[in-house]
């Protein structure tokens, strides 16, 4: 069921890319598999599927991403619980290699005890990228910090920050790009009494107009 859905999504992405280019916009989009590990009061692992899209008009860029999957206790045979995550960012590019963005980041997952933990961060992100293997291999590093957050946990929110780093390989004869990265989000609650870390490997394929 997932393969036809992925194929349909890629086709829709390609059509959207063509349409947007015709209107002077620079679109980008992709699908990814995210190997996720949540380490807080529980240790949960799982795999999620995600989709990303971005639309650039000059130096301004609007980006959306959505990840959904199942996570469960590490090594346990119990069925996983839902993990849902979404980000919306409005950014600018002061330089070709730098993007600054701001926007909400929401995440929801269910702990072993059945408690559903919901996070909403307002984040400020900075992303730097540049070619390091010819012009086809680009590396990127993105760091973010929460400007404010709300979470349905008994402890008060203290601070949160995270980042992602990896590389994107552009295929020479197609507007396709392959992405491999490592991402991590780290939140501190109750003055350090509770720590929540979500990290994982991102493997993606995307279409890029750039």
């Amino acid at each position, binding site marked *: 069921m997932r393969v036809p859905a992925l194929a349909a999504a890629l086709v829709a992405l390609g059509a959207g890319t063509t349409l947007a280019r015709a209107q002077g916009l620079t679109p980008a989009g992709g699908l990814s598999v995210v190997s996720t590990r949540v380490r807080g009061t529980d240790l949960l692992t799982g795999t999620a599927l995600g989709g990303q899209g971005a639309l650039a008009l000059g130096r301004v860029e609007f980006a959306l991403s959505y990840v959904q999957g199942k996570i469960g206790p590490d090594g346990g045979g119990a069925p996983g619980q839902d993990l849902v995550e979404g980000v919306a960012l409005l950014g600018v590019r002061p330089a070709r290699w730098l993007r600054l963005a701001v926007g909400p980041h929401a995440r929801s997952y269910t702990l072993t005890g059945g408690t559903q933990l919901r996070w909403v961060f307002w984040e400020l992100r900075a992303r730097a990228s540049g070619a390091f293997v010819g012009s086809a291999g680009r590396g990127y590093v993105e*760091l973010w910090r929460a400007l404010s957050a709300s979470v349905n946990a008994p402890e008060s929110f203290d601070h949160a920050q995270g980042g992602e780093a*990896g590389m994107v390989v552009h295929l020479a004869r197609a507007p396709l790009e392959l992405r491999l990265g490592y991402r991590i989000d780290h939140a501190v609650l109750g003055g350090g009494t509770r720590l929540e*870390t979500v990290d994982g*490997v991102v493997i993606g394929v995307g279409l890029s107009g750039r």
Partner: protein
Amino acid sequence: MRQRGAAVRRHLTWICLLVCGWSAAAAQGAAQAAGSPFAEGIRAYQNLDFDQAAALLRRDLARATGATASASERAQGLVYLGAADLFRGRRDSAVAVFRRLVQLDPRYRPDRLVFPPEVTSVFDNVRVETRAVVLVAPPDTEVSAGTGAFTFWVVASAFQTVEVTLRYQDGAPFRALYAGPMGDSLRVQWDGLDAAGQMPPVARVLLRVASRAPTGELAGIVQLPLDLRVVHVDTLPWPKPPADSLLLPERSGSRPALRALLGGALLATTVATLPSIVGSDHPSGSRLVVAGAVGLAGALGYVLHRPGRALTVNIQANQALRARWQQGVAAVKAENVRRRDDVHLAVHAGEPTAIKPSAR
């Protein structure tokens, strides 16, 4: 009675025609006479004072030279003088004047609005009987020797036989161009070469047209000096070889390789230390997989962009650039060969002279 009436009407018609003809002639002649060196004689002719007209015109024609009167003005003076002599009853004198006129310009025809049929018919008879030719050639021509042609016209007063030849200045034959009959005009071409197909070895030749009467007797010679100058077309300079700034490097430098190696190492380190950067103390080992992959990509990039590696794309681009230059050189060489073979001959035509055969 009826016959007498018809005769009167006939006379009246003639008188009207004569009056109209004289009026038209006066108007046309007045326009022609203005500014002419023969204006006095023409005016006397228009006033029907033919003796005075003949005397004035004869005097002015005797004084006229090429500098004071053009050929067309002299022709105008001669036709009025011939007409005046004719109306004075001096037909032989008129015929002699008209013969001079035909020899001066075989193309000349009296204006039939100015001169009555008595004059034009005498002139036509003289023209047919007089064998005269004139050469019409462009003053300056440049021809490609052998393939081009110096073209000129021989215009004749009447049907006759002509010999068109080129001669050395001493009169020796250089090249025969045409021999045979001609009507009003004849178009003749010379390819710029001598009889042996070579460039002329002299700087001046004479274009000579000898016209003969039907009896074969030489009727006249018109000669036109042609100044010749051999013109070699300049060859083209070779195109300059492509500048070094246009050529792409054919061997890779060290920067791309170092960028791949150092960039990969830096990025791998960043991935590995990202948990520490964000303050997490129990990172997963998966980051090391990503860090290793990034480092490996950097190392691979170093190998792919190693210093001194032949850059095939740049080599091909440079080869294409050099090939285009060599094609340009080959084209210029071919053009220069063509230009060296393409010798031009500049021909300047001088003033024609007429030579009358000596009387036997």
